[in-house]
């Protein structure tokens, strides 16, 4: 997993609420057995016509946002299916950070496993960032994970919360499985205890 420390980039505005994982990556692209290559189909049905032509109005098709690295989104981003193909598609497109007032639980979790930072801010702060993002490519938003701040193109800074363990993993690009396997002895003793307490399990 790539480290996430700081990021200064173009933010794409997506004010729609309840953007679900079927919108982020429709099911016809879940048939892959790989993690890579999904970026071209990110938001596929919003981004292309049925015959594969780009829909010019869609934000990521507009010249200012084709290289966006941040999405500022409406409430409850990532609701629906558990498909990790959603963060894989975002990452493959180049998105490293999503900012919203709220995220669906599984999607939020999946982001951290892939080096994407989801940030929850208040409605007022998201509104300011949405307006900033609408200014286009010259308005760069800065995300600083060590200091836990988001800074708009005109210098307004908002602090954000992030879980200490997840922050540590993102800053260092750490693999969770490796960390957990260091606790193998604790898992062994849980299993031994469980064999007595709940032998049917």
């Amino acid at each position: 997993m790539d480290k996430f420390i700081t990021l200064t980039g173009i933010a794409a505005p997506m004010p729609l609420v309840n953007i679900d994982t079927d919108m982020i990556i429709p099911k016809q692209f879940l048939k892959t057995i790989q993690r890579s290559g999904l970026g071209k189909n990110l938001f596929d049905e919003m981004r292309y016509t049925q015959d594969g032509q780009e829909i010019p109005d869609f934000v990521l098709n507009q010249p200012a946002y084709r290289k966006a690295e941040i999405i500022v989104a409406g409430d409850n981003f990532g609701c629906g299916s558990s498909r990790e193909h959603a963060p894989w598609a975002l990452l493959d497109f180049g998105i490293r950070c999503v900012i919203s007032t709220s995220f669906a639980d599984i999607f939020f979790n999946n982001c951290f496993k892939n080096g994407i930072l989801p940030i929850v801010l208040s409605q007022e702060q998201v509104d300011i960032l949405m307006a900033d993002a609408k200014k286009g490519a010259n308005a760069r938003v800065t995300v600083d994970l060590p200091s836990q701040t988001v800074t708009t193109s005109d210098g307004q800074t908002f602090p954000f919360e992030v879980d200490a363990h997840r922050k540590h993993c993102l800053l260092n690009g750490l693999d969770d499985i490796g960390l957990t396997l260091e606790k193998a002895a604790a898992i062994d003793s849980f299993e031994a205890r469980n064999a007595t307490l709940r032998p049917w399990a």
Partner: protein
Amino acid sequence: MTAPRTLYDKIWDDHVVHQAEDGTCLLYIDRHLVHEVTSPQAFEGLRMTGRKVRAPEKTIAVPDHNVPTTAGRDKHIDNEESRIQVEALDKNARDFGINYYPVSDIRQGIVHIVGPEQGWTLPGMTVVCGDSHTATHGAFGALAHGIGTSEVEHVLATQTLIQKKSKNMKVEITGSLRPGVTAKDITLSVIGATGTAGGTGYVIEYCGQAIRELSMEGRMTVCNMAIEGGARAGLIAPDEKTYQYVQGRPHAPKGAKWEAALAYWKTLFTDEGAHFDKVVTIRGEDIAPVVTWGTSPEDVLPITGVVPSPEDFTGGKVEAAKRSLDYMGLTPGMKLTDIAIDTVFIGSCTNGRIEDLRAAAAILKGKKIKVKRAMVVPGSGLVRAQAEEEGLAQIFIDAGFEWRLAGCSMCLAMNPDQLAPGERCAATSNRNFEGRQGRGGRTHLLSPAMAAAAAITGHLTDVRELMAESV
């Protein structure tokens, strides 16, 4: 004396392997269900790092998401990508020695129907799967939720998950349901009341007389859609109905282990005075048969209602409602019962169990469909066999339904069962998102009885009117 605990607190406490100072826990996983779509990259990860599956005996795999539901699929799957995924699951199950139900096995079906049916899912367990509808298993008083593929790999390698505890939410349905109202109407009505993010950050415990009165099948329908309300999981405390459902299933405990299990399961309830961070109470008598009109599962209205106007909403929902109405091709003020239906889909992990097929067949008996096509996809091979034995299959076939093989099918339309652009479907599944059942497809979520009613009238219909006719 320890402080009073909720059911969720108790299951959580019994599965903590390690707790870090910041509250992050390593939680032990009792059952890991696996399907073909969200697992290939996880097994590939194990191979690349030379890791093994820690507890293959607690890992159960079944292909369901993209398998065709037509005959001959055990010999050949036409779609190459689907075939590769199913073959990858075959190989991974073999290579890593995990329990497996291939498409040729009568026990194959939707993973969330197979787990309970085979007795893998038991009260008090932690159950995970790379699928958001894992919440279904909460009906047994098991802590069950969906995970992403990285977490699938984590569970395969370590039999644990890194988790932070959610908050406790209680959803109480008081009193009894009125005739024609079902578990599906409960779960949709709760989401209609709380919104799709109303449960975010919570584990929901469903309780109250109306929940107690539901069968295990109905309880599974309620918990299944907890995720649609944003909750991590939904739970229902086990009771006699639960024990009876579980007893005698192939992987349920037997003999002395059964007695020990039963004694433990009887401790699985929320203590008097335990704290809930959020409480929602709905009167069972107030719940009507409902349908969805929009493209979010929170867009729920009683069938007696009319299509809303965007101005009925506030905030970001105004634009979302405009977009939904445009996508769904509906006009504000139109009666819901005037919405003509092209296709009816009965099935899915929400409503693909035997009781669902019985409810639909009771409405369809002796009638013919007026929609262009109608399809029943039983949730498992065993549900299908039982429905054939009970004569339900013949009722569906005589009415004009296609009688399919088990799988997820048109719920997410990864296999050939898809809607065409503009095609309008009454579906017993769980999501009405844009494009969910096929690009441009329009989905109205409802109960199996309501789906059957729509099938025979050709439009959304209040099932209670048909029930009155047959009396």
